Every structure is written in structure tokens, then in C-alpha cells.
């Protein structure tokens, strides 16, 4: 376990850099996680479209969305999602959106 300090707030992260308490998430936290997980300095509107959809989907269903839904909602082609988040939808996008690590081979 490790932590990150974001403007006075102490964020607890698990050994893979996922936020332990998803409620600690806000946009500023996302920027910091993006830097840590993906080395992204500045999140673009395309990044945000993906992150916000994942975040809202998670708040409603307690699940990470299928990559199919991410493409459908944001209008971004699949290959673009992989370019935006080289660590992948789980270890990149979902992590930055403050979700816990999904189960399975990811």
C-alpha cells in the first residue's frame, strides 16, 4: 500500500496504484492518477469523455463498463481508446476514473 498527496488530501493506493477508497476521487485526483498510471501530463477532452463515462457507469452499476459501451457512448473508435490509455481500459482508464481493480485476468 502507498499514498499520494493531492492538495492536502492523502490518497491511499493499493499495490497496483488503484484508489482504495473510490469516494476520494475528484477531477484533480484523476489528473494525479493519470500521471502516475500512464505518465499523461494533461488529460485531453477525449480522455475526459472516457473517464467521465466510466465514472458515472461505475457509480450507477458498481461495475466497469464494457469497452463496447465506452466506444458507443463517447463515439471514439476502439483503437483510439487504446491509444489514449496505453495501459488499457482496466489498468489505465478505470484506474484513472478511480475504480477498484476489476476481477479476472487484468
Amino acid at each position, binding site marked *: *500500500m*502507498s*499514498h*499520494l498527496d493531492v492538495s492536502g488530501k492523502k490518497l*491511499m*493506493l*493499493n*499495490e*497496483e496504484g*488503484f484508489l482504495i477508497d473510490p469516494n476520494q476521487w475528484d477531477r484533480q485526483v484523476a489528473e494525479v492518477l493519470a500521471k*502516475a498510471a500512464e505518465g499523461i501530463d494533461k488529460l485531453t477532452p477525449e480522455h475526459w469523455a472516457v473517464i467521465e463515462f466510466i465514472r458515472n457507469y461505475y457509480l450507477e452499476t458498481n*461495475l*466497469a463498463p*464494457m*469497452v*463496447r*459501451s465506452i466506444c458507443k457512448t463517447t463515439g471514439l473508435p*476502439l483503437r483510439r481508446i487504446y491509444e489514449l490509455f*496505453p*495501459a*488499457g*481500459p*482496466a*489498468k489505465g482508464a478505470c484506474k484513472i476514473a478511480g475504480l477498484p*481493480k*476489476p*476481477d*479476472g*485476468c*487484468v
Partner: protein
Amino acid sequence: MASDKDPKDPYLERIRQLKPGQLESALASFKRLLDHKTVANLQSCVNCGLCADSCHYFLVTGETEAIPAYKLKLVTSVFRKLLSLLGGLARGSEGDGALDSQMVEKWIDSLYGRCTLCGRCTLNCTMGINITRLIRIARTTLASIDLVPPGLQSTVTTAVEKGNNMGIPREEWLDTLQWLSEELQMEVGDHKAHLPVDKPGTKLLYTVNPREPKFFPLSLLATAKIFYAASESWTVSSDYYDVTNYGLYSGDDGAAGLLSSRLRESMVELGAKTLILGECGHGYNSNRWEAPEWLVAEDKFQVKSIIQIIFDYIRQGHIKLDPSRIQKRVTLHDPCNLVRLGGIIEEQRFILRNAVTDFVEMSPNREKNYCCGGGGGQLSMTRYAKRRLETGRIKADQIRKTGAKIVVTPCHNCIDQLSELNREYDLKVEIKTVSEVVADALVIEKKEK
């Protein structure tokens, strides 16, 4: 990023507060798992130490706790103590192998936390001891008192409760299949091309790793394209299509048997001829080789890997490949569960020699290959993630030495670990499944309408 000691780790708390009744029940489970082969194995180690260098954990860390013989000893000492309690005359039976909470903690740290059940030590043991199986027996013992590490346990639980290990709802699986059908139609220029669901009486029933529909559908699209080119009679099930079986890793035989039996249910329901296991090493090993031990009924059909099917397509001329399309150097990672433990060794090499121009082997390879570090449930056990990445260095070095730009592996579990190693060790390679490479080289002939 600062590091903290977790003040209260609920899992560790559970271990430290184990009640005597739970420990007795664990010991009783352990005893039930001891058949004559296991007992012989537990008494055969001659302390030669030759297994040490076969384990990627030991090679990287040099820690005693990583030596296979040490792991074996943890199990053996409990066995000897048990035997002395039963009045047997085991060598050194006096021992300190009480199964108390300290021993449980050691078991967990070494047998879950420092082992991928890769089988490499077994291959190298002077005495032919099946160390890997004994480690799994210890995991089964721990599973019997609900002490499987959290991420691994939740992956098993999700699979048991939701029908697949990522908890994908049925409608979303169907929606993704529909989407992939549209993509396939565009790629092959045939509006009849599609991914068939619940089609009765097909030759093949195909199974996938849930991470394909969930996050990485291009591999499934690639396989569908190969089936299309070969005019195959195939289908997937709308219910039970998950090829993975984390019960193999957690040690929970009950869950493992249930998961394997569901694929059989799909087979019977749809009346398919052959069960095809998608590119998943442990899915192959568990559903092909281990399942008969877990299941009650005997299979009345064949169980094969998709790799064997693609191999046959090429050999029998059912698909045509143009290797000149892939000029970059390609190497192959052998998934432990498919190769060393599964026996599918040459097929993937034959496929690659036909699909790419410059194929080179890693060294060592085939059944002697090193584990990528992601097996044994390690991908799901976040608490050991640092060790997983650290011990993956052996694989990273192997890859770098080949000078390859593309690493192919017929296992989604390995793919995920290799992708992390790619970033961690800055390998600058692409990582692909066998289907993806074959689909790239595929020459699609116009179908007669």
C-alpha cells in the same frame, strides 16, 4: 509515492485470529488430500537444492522463501507432524510443523505469494517430486478455511455467482457479439459474416476469456475472422462461455469442478461436437486435463485448444496465409499451463512459421520456458503485484535478447502480464495472441454467394 505499512489488513487479521477449530478443520482437509502418490512425494526430497535455479522467484530475489524445496518443506513439515500425531514413524517426525497461524502465514506468503504453479521446479527435481501439485494441495487446504487471498477469491466468486470471472451481464455479452459481427462484416466485405450465438448442432463450441469481450475484443474478432475464412461450423454460448477457471489457482476443487461442468452443460445443451478452449493457458490445463478429476461424469466429446484447430486449418489448406505481410521479428512465449503442463508445444510454432517472415525462439523455450510471472493467480492477487513485476524480469530479459518486435502468446493471462512487463522494462514490443497474428496474415477469398 510514499510507502506505508497497512495498519489493518483485514486478511492478515483473519489469519492472526484463526480459531483452533478452524485450524483443526484445515488439518482434516489436508489429511483428506493425502493419497499414496502425495505421501510418497512428501517423503522424497533429498535436499540436493537443484530446484532452486528453476524458479523465477528465486532467480530474481535470491530469497530462501522462494526456493521450491523450501516451499515443499513447509508442506512436508506439516505432514510429518501429522504423521507423528497419528503414531507413524516418519523421518524427523518430531518436527515443528504444527499447522498454527504462524505456519498458515508462511504457507500463504510462499505458496500463494511466491509461486505461479508454473511446474518448472517439478520438471527439474532430481527425485521427480511433483512440487507444484503439493503446493496446490496446500492451497486447497487453505481454501477449505476460506483463506484464499482476496483478489483471487473474488475472481472465483464472481465466476461462480455471475457465470464469468468479470461478471459480464448477458445482454452486454450479446451486445458486444453483435457489434463484433458488424465489424467482421466490414472487414471481410460479406454482410452474412457473423459470430453465431447458441446455434445448435455445430461442430465447434468456442469459449473465450472474459477480458476479450470486456476490454480487448480484437482477439475475439480475429478468431471469428479465422473461423469465417475456414467456413467453420461454430458457435458461442450466451450463458457459459468463460474458458478461465481460477479454481485451479485458488485450490478450491469444488468451485473448479463447477466452472468446468458449466462448459460441459453448454456442450450438451447446444449439441456441439468439440469443445474449443480459447487462448488461455490455465483454461486449457484445467478444462482439458484437470477437469476429469473434478467432474462426476465422463466427457462424451473431445476437448481441444483453438491452437490445435488453427494448426489443422493451415496443415489441411483450409486457410491461406501471406507471411510477407508480417516482416517484423516475432518471438513466442510459451504459457506454462498450455505447454509444460498442457502438452501443446509444436502447433503454435508451426502456425507462426506459416504466418510470419522472421520467427525466432526465446531461450530456453518449449517445456523449459520460464513463466512470465503472471500465472498461478498472481495477476489477481494485488498484494503480491510488486513481486510479480520484479520476477517478470527473467521473461523481460528473454524477450529483449531475441530482438523481436512482436511477442506472440496463446494466453490472455500471459498477455496481461507481458503488457505490464513491456512498460515496466521498456521493451518496446507489441504483444499479440496467435489468432491476432494469423488474422493479420489471412488471405480472405471471396465467398460464393
